[in-house]
């Protein structure tokens, strides 16, 4: 026992209480906001330049800085944007882009035909400083596989200071779409293209905002208003309206929700997989939700070059095992539709679009049957490995799928994110059995490129190596006929190369103090959609506070 | 007379972070068969280390032992660890100073006592336990059967020391080291234990080395005495010779520091002033010089060799007692 006498323990308690009070009296008022907009996104910044492959969240940030020649309006039509007009020959082989005059990059360069040619060359990997880019998937074959600047000069030329003409070897009815490609092929200034750090920390575009800082840790990008921005609002007033925009990366949807509810951010983006959060935010009077059209189909893509999905039985077993209604419910909580065909019903690939053809379905008995068939075929049990990312949503959704597969008698486990991330870095699904893939195909069938072409990227596991199917899609691409697309799509479904799971529209949630989302008219008429594939129009956004 | 153990030129050095420490320096010692030899010295004088080194109980990478030890005609210092181990218990055994720490607190007396019988003598469990009970009665422990089942903490100090002795003699050793066997006990028990040891030695025909700081103990229970100071033997003789003809001032100081029943009340007990020299950094002269009331300049400058006063009486002093030299004021 203690040798101290008792009595003044009150003093001890008092000292402790004082310490407690002293440490809690730190609370200070929140910082003032004004024209500073904070946007939370769920994707890390891995670079914006031609060679990088940002996802949708980062593209929306990137498009606030750099813009595309064409753009998609809220009706889903591709219209000229940095280009004033886009003309094509009747055979879709010659395309002429006339640029707007008087547009200047953030570094002072004027937008001219020469700038556009420099950008194309960079995207094709002809700029020795900038390696080949991902948009090249969409372009390279269109240019007939050019490998040198000399070859390139024959295909693309400046017809004047503001006019560029492309001569293609094969018909490309959707060449103007390739110049949009969901906001990817932006036009950078020539100096930017010649910097090795292009898009990582620096970048001069024509957009409403300039880069103030881009964190090397990939978690924060701060933009400031471009005073010389070329577009004006409906009243002819100067844009942009905000002084600064901060894109903060917060990987977890629940944290984005918390921060938004608290007012730590003005706008945040969400996928339908954040269903519980979305449902809760819908009830919050301080928040406004915008949902895009449900035309993004989350699908499983099978790697047909390796076991087990080189076997048709395995693919069919997988396709029949997935209870799409249950999955949509688990993942999106009513914020997405179960998907049986590619895209929404109006999509040219969609087999039920004006047709009577059937898409993939859920059928447990058949799934079990094909699992057994695979066993007979190969002597092995069907074992599936699903890649996951760090996010809770990913683990949740994949686990639900895994359990569906187990119900059908297949073995299934989740690939841990530490492995999956490394694998994904090898170039999408280069070596995975299967991967989630969102087919952003709402208005445009351009993703047929993925099935039909050879590129320098050799994503052989990623694309179909089925020559017959590739030819089918090539023809579809050249004719742009819905019937042809559907013919190819029927093979896709029949062979279960792709397994659609659910359709989502994507969400943008803003606080009710935010105004101007999707308001600015496009120069050629129409508007950008609030929830589009390349981000909303940030130029007109303002916070009233 | 047969020699039971003969220690020649024994050195023990410990490597420490502060340099090499020589705990035992050039010790020569003869232990005749059947005799009892006392080793006397203050704590820290190296007596325990010397004995453990002689037995081969010191181990570790920081210990260096030089010299020769011949036990029962076998040269221990030339044997492997395993061969030496085979001599333990049956050849030589040791009784420890503190029976409190020398018994394993978590094991029963019976287990601890019988394990050496089983492991060293190959007895079966039953025989070993029976023999254990005999051993306990040999060391005069009442009700040995009940004692076998007890844990060390349930015993008094004297009882524990008896158990220690029983363990040590369990395998009939030829040579028994008793390292301050009574220091931890109270005075009445001390006498009983020493008496017991002497009787056991006689009955079992063992040799014994009795390590102590108490010259009084030595006087009653040993045949030969070696006095150690700072790692060296400083005086050595038969017990009778030593007490009759003391040569070392240090031995005398030790004798004076024993409490005496005949002391008058109020009379101060003499203590040896000062400290042992730093074992890492020894003075070059006599180690006792700073504490010796007879010290001269020569004692500071030169280390005294071991001199022979006849009768096998060895001492290490430039100015032994009996010389007529003025005491320092």
């Amino acid at each position, binding site marked *: *026992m203690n040798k*101290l006498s008792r009595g003044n323990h009150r003093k*001890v308690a008092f000292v402790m209480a004082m310490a407690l009070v002293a440490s809690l009296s730190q609370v200070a008022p929140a910082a003032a906001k004004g024209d500073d907009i904070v946007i939370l996104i769920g994707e890390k910044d891995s*670079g914006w330049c031609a060679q990088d492959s940002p996802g949708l969240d980062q593209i929306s940030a990137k498009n606030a800085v750099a813009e595309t020649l064409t753009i998609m309006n809220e009706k889903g039509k591709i219209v000229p944007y940095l280009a004033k007009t886009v003309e094509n020959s009747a055979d879709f082989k010659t395309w002429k882009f006339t640029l707007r005059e008087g547009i200047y990059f953030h570094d002072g360069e004027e937008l001219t035909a020469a700038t556009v040619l420099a950008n194309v060359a960079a995207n094709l990997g002809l700029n020795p400083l900038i390696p080949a880019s991902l948009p090249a998937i969409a372009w390279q074959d269109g240019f007939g596989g050019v490998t040198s600047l000399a070859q390139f000069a024959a295909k693309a030329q400046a017809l004047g200071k503001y006019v560029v003409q492309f001569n293609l070897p094969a018909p490309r009815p959707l060449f103007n779409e390739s110049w949009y490609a969901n906001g990817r092929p932006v036009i950078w200034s020539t100096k930017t293209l010649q910097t090795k750090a292009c898009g990582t920390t620096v970048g001069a575009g024509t957009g409403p905002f300039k880069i103030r800082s881009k964190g090397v840790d990939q978690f924060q990008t701060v933009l400031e208003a471009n005073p010389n921005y070329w577009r004006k609002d409906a009243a002819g007033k100067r844009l942009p309206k905000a002084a600064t925009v901060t894109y903060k990366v917060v*990987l977890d949807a629940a944290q984005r929700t918390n*921060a938004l509810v*608290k007012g730590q951010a003005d706008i945040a983006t969400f996928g339908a997989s954040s269903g519980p959060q979305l449902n809760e935010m819908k009830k919050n009077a301080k928040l406004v939700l915008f949902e895009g059209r449900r035309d993004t189909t989350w699908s499983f893509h099978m790697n047909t070059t390796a076991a087990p999905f080189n076997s048709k039985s395995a693919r069919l077993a997988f396709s029949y095992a997935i209870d799409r209604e249950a999955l949509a419910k688990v993942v999106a909580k009513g914020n997405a539709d179960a998907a049986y065909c590619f895209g929404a019903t109006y999509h040219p690939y969609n087999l039920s679009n004006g047709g009577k053809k059937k898409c993939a379905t859920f059928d447990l008995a058949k799934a079990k049957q094909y699992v057994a068939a695979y066993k007979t075929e190969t002597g092995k049990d069907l074992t599936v490995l699903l890649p996951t990312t760090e996010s809770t949503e990913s683990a949740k959704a994949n686990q639900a799928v895994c359990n569906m597969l187990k119900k059908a008698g297949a073995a299934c486990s989740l690939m841990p994110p530490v492995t999956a*991330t490394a694998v994904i870095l090898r170039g999408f699904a280069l070596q995975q059995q299967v991967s989630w893939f969102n087919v952003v195909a709402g208005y445009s069938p351009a993703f047929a490129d993925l099935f039909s072409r050879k590129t320098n990227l050799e994503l052989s596991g990623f694309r179909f190596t089925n020559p017959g199917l590739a030819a089918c899609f090539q023809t579809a691409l050249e004719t742009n006929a819905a019937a042809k697309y559907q013919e190819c799509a029927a093979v896709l479904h029949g062979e279960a190369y792709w397994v659609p799971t659910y359709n989502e529209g994507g969400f943008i949630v803003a606080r009710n103090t935010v105004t101007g989302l999707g308001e600015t008219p496009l120069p050629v008429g129409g508007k950008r959609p609030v929830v589009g594939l390349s981000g909303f129009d940030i130029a007109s956004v303002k916070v009233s506070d | 007379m047969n020699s039971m153990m003969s220690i020649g030129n024994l050195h023990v050095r410990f490597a420490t*972070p502060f340099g090499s420490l020589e705990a035992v320096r050039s010790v020569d010692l003869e232990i005749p068969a059947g005799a009892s030899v006392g080793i006397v010295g203050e704590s820290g004088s190296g007596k325990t280390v010397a004995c453990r080194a002689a037995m081969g109980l010191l181990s570790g990478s920081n210990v260096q032992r030089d010299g020769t030890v011949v036990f029962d005609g076998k040269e221990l210092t030339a044997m492997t660890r395993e061969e030496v181990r085979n001599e333990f218990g049956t050849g030589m055994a040791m009784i420890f100073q503190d029976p409190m720490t020398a018994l394993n607190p978590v094991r029963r007396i019976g287990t601890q006592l019988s394990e050496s019988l089983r492991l060293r003598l190959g007895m079966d469990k039953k025989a070993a336990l029976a023999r254990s009970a005999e051993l306990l009665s040999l060391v005069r422990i009442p009700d040995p059967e009940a004692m076998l089942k007890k844990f060390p903490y349930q015993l008094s100090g004297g009882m524990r020391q008896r158990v220690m002795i029983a363990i040590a003699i369990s395998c009939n050793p030829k040579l028994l080291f008793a390292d301050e066997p009574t220091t931890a006990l109270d005075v009445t028990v001390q006498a009983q234990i020493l008496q017991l040891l002497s009787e056991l030695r006689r009955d079992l025909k063992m040799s014994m080395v009795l390590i102590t700081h108490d010259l009084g103990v030595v006087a009653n229970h040993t045949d030969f005495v070696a006095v150690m100071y700072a790692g060296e033997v400083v005086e050595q003789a038969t017990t009778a010779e030593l007490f009759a003809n003391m040569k070392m001032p240090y031995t005398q100081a030790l004798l004076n520091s024993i409490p005496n029943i005949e002391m008058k009340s109020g009379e101060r007990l003499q203590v040896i002033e000062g400290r042992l020299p730093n074992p890492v950094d020894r003075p070059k002269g006599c180690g006792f010089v700073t504490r010796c009331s007879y010290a001269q300049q020569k004692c500071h400058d030169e280390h005294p060799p071991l001199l022979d006063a006849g009768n096998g009486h060895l001492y290490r002093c430039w100015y032994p007692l009996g010389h007529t030299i003025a005491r320092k004021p």
Partner: protein
Amino acid sequence: MKYRVALKNLAKAVLVLFLVTFSISILVRWLPGDPIEILMPFATEEGRAALRAELGLDINVVQYYFSWLFDLLRGDFGVWYASTGDGGGVPVRSMLAVALPRSLLIMLYTMVVSIVFAVPLGIFLAYRAETRTDKTISNVLFAVSSIPSFAIGLALAFVVGVQLDLLPVIGYVPFAENPSEHFRSLVMPVVSLSIGLIATFSRLLRVDMIATLREDFVTMASSKGLSNMWILWRHVLRPSSSTLMTSAALQMGALIGGAVVIESVFALNGFGMLLTTAIATRQYLAIQSLVALIAIAYIVFNLIVDVLYAVVDPRVRGGRG
């Protein structure tokens, strides 16, 4: 003499450091898959060869280790390869410049807060030892120290952050930018990390202080008529704090990497996140350099505590000889 001991300890620390970094070199080589395929899927042959040389895949692991070591000593922590797959990237050093200060500050605040609360609490409990108050609080602390910090963090973010609307739920604000926001942004992460530590520390201190209170010099001080507060703070605290300090040093090392989960809960993107990402994305050079940093920090903290022992407890200073 004492310098020799210090030098020997230092030599041991350096040896441990060497072994840690060398083991990591080997471990990194074991990571499955061809690093070139992962870091540079789109590179040219020359680029691949260059990266191969940079990662030391063309030389044996020993040679590679030493070249990495010399780079590290020169302050070159290697390159963080961009996901572009062309072998380009940013220096790990600049990534560290962003992430490290955050984590260090969080650690520092956590330690300060934990000790500031744990010491009075430990003293109070020791003072009231074996009373009902002590037993109740001790049991509660015991329970609290068993709750994982992320659980506390998640609950705090929801209740204090969203429902009570008191503190920000995400993000980090640098001190230079806005001092008051800086502290506000770190309150919840620090509290979630501290609660367990406060419980652990005060329990440790309580036990040691109860032992010290039994010693005679306390009776002595008491008999001199000194007040209990004075005795507790001036006489008892110092000799009772060695276990607390040891534990604090060990926790320091663990906190550096262990705050990973809390960093993800509050979207702080500090050192822990950097390290996890480095492992996930096979940033070979970065993994090595980051782990080496942690090991260095751990070892330095332990050396500092050795010195602190001597400062706090003179017995350590004198007792060595």
